């Protein structure tokens, strides 16, 4: 499988998905014009990684603003991680945020609520 790399734009986050180390990095704002088009390759990559390998998968997030469809897509992604975790797969999320913008931390808490896998929310130092 391939690595996926998307450069940051004013309306989409930077995305780096490295299959060798099993790491996904996403940072920035997300309000893409066509959310399906933007998120589908990301979700497909995750599905393929979970299916074709047995390695752990780590998420490193620095997302700031998400519009409604991006929130939905992120919940879909976390649902997949939860399912993988339930079946014994090692997954984790680290969501870091600017301590000046405490609200982002509170929002990440909302996402974390239903997840039983390791999900850390930390102010960036």
């Amino acid at each position, binding site marked *: 499988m391939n690595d996926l790399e998307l450069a940051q734009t004013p309306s989409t986050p930077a995305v780096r998905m490295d299959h060798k180390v099993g790491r996904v990095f996403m940072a920035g704002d997300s309000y893409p014009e066509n959310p399906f088009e933007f998120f589908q390759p990301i979700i497909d990559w995750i599905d393929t990684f979970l299916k074709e390998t047995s390695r752990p998968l780590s998420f490193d997030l620095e997302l700031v603003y998400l519009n*409604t469809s991006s929130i939905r897509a992120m*919940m879909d992604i976390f649902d997949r991680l939860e399912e993988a975790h339930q079946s014994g797969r090692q997954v984790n999320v680290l969501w870091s945020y600017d301590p000046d913008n405490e609200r982002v931390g509170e*929002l990440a808490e909302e996402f974390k609520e239903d997840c039983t896998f390791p999900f850390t929310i930390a102010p960036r130092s």
Partner: protein
Amino acid sequence: MSPLHLNDNLEEQIEALLTADTPVDGWKEPLRELFQRYMDQQRLLDRLTHIADRFQAAERERSQGYLVNYEKKVRQLEKIVRISDQYQTMLHQLKERLEHASNYDSLTNLPNRRYMTIRLEETAAQAARKPEAGFTVMIADVDDFKAVNDKFGHAAGDRVLQAVAHALELALREYDMCARWGGEEFLLLFPACESANAPLVAERLRLAVAAAPRISEEIPAPTISIGYTQHRTGENIDKTLLRADEALYKAKNAGRNCSIGM
């Protein structure tokens, strides 16, 4: 064996048996057949019930599954709405902060040059439509400010500017406006201020700053010089400002800590 064919035949035989007064020869055969048929039907009925029950169970399970799925979706939707609303609130607050940052001076919290320029243009446009809505502008400049900065440092200079800004603001009426014009210069706008009142207002401001609480014992109490002028209907606002600037220059030359109009 076709049930219908047998049925017809067997029914007749059984009826014949039942209507006879005494047992007819060969009565056992139809009875055995009848019993056999009864047992077959019983088995069929059992199977039918069993299948029907299973269908019913499957159906119940299916609708249960839909219900669980539905409830999950509703929870998910509520959550998306909740998160989305919070993000929107965040965006809104961010916008307000940006708006404030672009219109206000961060040191004195007074409107900045950008904001004041817009207000000046608006006020001049109003005056062009209603000539009686004349207005006065004043430029106030802190006297010997460079000396404070040089001798006591920029932090002390900043505190002096804050103190002056505060004193000016307290001396204004609600609809007057004071902006940080740049450096140690403040621009004041007095809508609907007649030229006869301008000297009084300028003096009031000057005295308000002179009477402001000292920020420390070693730093001398700040004073301001003021140049003021009346906007002339129809003239470009830049021209008004230039005249106020000239008046300020005269005030500085006249020994500072005074106000001069032009």
